[in-house]
């Protein structure tokens, strides 16, 4: 582990200095995360307004969600956020093999999250909790519950899509990062990717209480 490789960044020709390039990409990623937050904020606003318009229906629907799978998924993402921090710290130290292992662990945890999510959706289908399929809907008596369940599916679906693209980009990045000399030229990419991954975790940290916990 102590055979540290040189760490640095290769300056693109339209930047004046490497620092300018590094700060520019960090600011670019933060601007992108800003838009991701506002994208999900629309859904959180709808969840809040539904809670105001139909309190009983939302509580009924929220209690039918798989609370423990959601809790487990949150814990998984927090672990993946930890391993991602590890990958960043190791990339700064130049310990390439350790960094690659951490990145693979992060990808594995992300995939585990998706597997659990898939299982949760499967349970929903079995319990007839999916109103927009052509099978009978369990809580058909109170149509307002459909609104909250629909918001649940759209929010978790959108988040899962972000996580899926996140894991696939991470795998491609890991393959490139495992090559010699990567850290000498593109260490910055690991940090920028880390920001994106942590933010997917932040979004889920908000989604879990909004859907599963607050309305119980």
């Amino acid at each position: 582990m102590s055979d540290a490789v040189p760490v640095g960044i290769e300056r693109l020709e339209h930047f004046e200095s490497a620092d300018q390039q590094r700060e520019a990409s960090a600011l670019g990623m933060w601007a992108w995360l800003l838009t991701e937050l506002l994208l999900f904020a629309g859904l959180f606003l709808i969840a809040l307004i539904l809670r105001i318009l139909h309190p009983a229906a939302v509580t009924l629907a929220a209690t039918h969600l798989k609370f423990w799978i959601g809790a487990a998924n949150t814990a998984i993402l927090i672990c993946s956020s930890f391993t991602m921090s590890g990958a960043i710290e190791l990339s700064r130290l130049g310990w390439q093999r350790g960094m690659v292992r951490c990145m693979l662990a992060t990808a594995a945890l992300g995939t585990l999250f998706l597997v659990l999510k898939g299982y949760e959706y499967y349970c929903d289908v079995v319990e007839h909790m999916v109103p927009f399929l052509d099978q009978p809907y369990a809580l058909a008596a109170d149509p307002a519950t459909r609104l909250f369940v629909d918001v649940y599916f759209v929010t978790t679906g959108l988040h899962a899509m972000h996580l899926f693209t996140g894991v696939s980009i991470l795998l491609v990045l890991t393959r490139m990062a495992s090559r010699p000399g990567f850290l000498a030229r593109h260490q910055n990419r690991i940090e920028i990717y880390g920001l994106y991954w942590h933010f997917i975790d932040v979004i889920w940290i908000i989604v879990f209480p909004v859907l599963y916990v607050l309305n119980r």
Partner: protein
Amino acid sequence: MTSEDRRLLWHHMRLPTISFAALLGLLAINVTLGATTPFRWAWMIEAGVTLCMVLVVLLVSMEVWRDTPLIRVFSMLGFFWVLIMFSMTLTDYLGR
């Protein structure tokens, strides 16, 4: 891994580990409150705990507190705008 490497690694990983533990602890609070629903206004505590978790990840994992003031502004800007959207929409729904 020599002991010197291990010490260097711990020096770097100290903050992520603390924040990791803090996040799991806060999650545990939310989960217990959610599972037992002790009192009607428990959602306020849960919302507060969620806010703490978001701040921990933002400030520590994404190292916003060690970053340039510009990045700090951009990390808080989104949440401030979400606040604007929520509060103005609530003036409609709570005022009806």
